[in-house]
């Protein structure tokens, strides 16, 4: 639970005084999108390596511990890409020029040059995109990321609902945590699975009831302060020279290695 809370709700890195943290979130998101498009369409491993290097450099300039960043990005790689990439190495999936042959349980498996190159390209693409996405999410406060959605013309009511979901998920996580502790303090750690299921079911029901009640109360609190179906917010983004320089820099990279 604490890992979940830390990874989802922590704004520790976003509050630091680093390069990416100082940029206008709109410019930062737009330039990162450019990088992601480039990563998606390039077939050149060298370009991917260059972009990966850019993400590492940005990490260093943004006062993020490199060890933390690498752990956070590489942990997802085996899950999402290695399982897909490994079969593509072999001639069964990717026929082509043989590089080497492995014998596993009497079955000969040939790794092909095309297979190796395809798998490397795929893994590099995943790691580079994950790096940029993680970098964006840890250097931007969650509420700023939500506000950025407005630049894509997503209706304010939708953005606000997302914000409220994020806000109240935390409250429910706390309720769940406390309920879990309350149950544990009364029944101990070992309970029969049937009873356990019953407790979980009643918790789900009670949480649903609480969320329903909260939904009504929050709506009243909104009405009380003049809400009439069209939420208004104050645009507080500020764009400075540093943002324009970064935009220029990102555009140059985008055009040069296209």
């Amino acid at each position, binding site marked *: 639970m604490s890992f979940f809370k830390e990874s989802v*709700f922590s704004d520790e890195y976003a509050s630091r005084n680093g390069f990416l943290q100082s940029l206008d979130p709109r410019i930062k998101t737009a330039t990162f999108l450019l990088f992601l498009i480039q990563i998606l369409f390039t077939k050149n491993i060298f370009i991917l390596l260059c972009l990966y290097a850019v993400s590492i450099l940005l990490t260093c300039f943004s006062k993020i511990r490199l060890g933390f960043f690498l752990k956070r990005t590489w942990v997802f790689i085996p899950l999402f890409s290695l399982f897909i990439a490994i079969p593509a190495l072999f001639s069964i999936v990717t026929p082509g020029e043989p590089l080497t042959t492995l014998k596993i349980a009497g079955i000969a498996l040939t790794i092909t040059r095309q297979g190796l190159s395809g798998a490397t390209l795929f893994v590099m693409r995943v790691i580079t995109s994950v790096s940029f996405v993680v970098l964006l999410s840890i250097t931007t406060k969650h509420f700023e990321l939500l506000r950025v959605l407005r630049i894509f013309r997503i209706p304010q009511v939708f953005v606000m609902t997302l914000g409220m979901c994020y806000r109240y998920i935390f409250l429910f996580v706390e309720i769940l945590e406390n309920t879990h502790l309350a149950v544990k303090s009364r029944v101990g750690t070992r309970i029969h699975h049937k009873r356990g299921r019953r407790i979980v079911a009643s918790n789900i029901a009670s949480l649903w009831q609480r969320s329903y009640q909260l939904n009504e109360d929050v709506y009243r*609190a*909104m009405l009380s*302060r003049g*809400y009439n179906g069209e939420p208004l917010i104050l645009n507080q983004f500020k764009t400075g020279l540093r943002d324009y320089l970064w935009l220029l820099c990102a555009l140059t990279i985008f055009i040069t290695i296209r």
Partner: protein
Amino acid sequence: MNNLIFELKNVHFSYLGKFPALSGVDISIQQGEKITVIGANGSGKSTLLHMLDGLIFPDRGTMKAFGEEIKESVFNDENFSRNFRKKVGLVFQNPDVQLFCPTAKEDIIFGPLQLGMEREEIEKRLEELTGTLNLRNLLDRPPHQLSVGEKRKVALASTLIINPDILLLDEPTAGLDPLTTRHIIDLLIQANNSGKTIITSTHDLHIVEEISDVVYVFGQGKTIVKSGKPEEILGDDRLLHDHNLIHIHSHRHKNKTHIHPHSHLHHHIET
């Protein structure tokens, strides 16, 4: 009377049509008064405040605000609704309900933005309020990172920034430390001195005398059992005891154990 702002006559209300919350409430409130509503849990105090804020409406009986009868349909008129929301502000009992935006600052400015206040004016009021309530360091923090006291102060700020003529407060000092409680009471007294009507629901009898011209006591029958001046109500131990507002209290003074009803009006002088 010209300065009558709220007038409730024989008001009944029930949740889902079967759980009574108000049963025959009569109350008249004038501009600039300090009103306190006291009563045990579940006696209908919060329901009354929600009704005065135009969030729920009587099942039976009549409620008038500013001389006009209040029904759900009158809020369909955008002008009326906007004016009413500008004039009446409610601080909810649970600050988590009131703080639904991603940051404290957005929560505070939500009201004035919806009510069409000029942006410069909003910034000006925000600056003043954050200074008064000492909230500057909290503005960019998400509500879930605030303590209960901080949440209460932000919730109070989110209502005060609208600068309503009538301030409804549902247990504003519940769970607060003594210093923050004092701060909030001072703010309320200051608001009342500047002409605002203050209507507070509370269990905290320590604060009643300071923030009341009239006290209404709600009973378990979901209606007002007595009203009067604070000294009259707080001096009536039988009434307070019958409605779960005091209990027998035992403590020591100068090496002597001292037992008396836990009342809040000069008990040490009288006993």
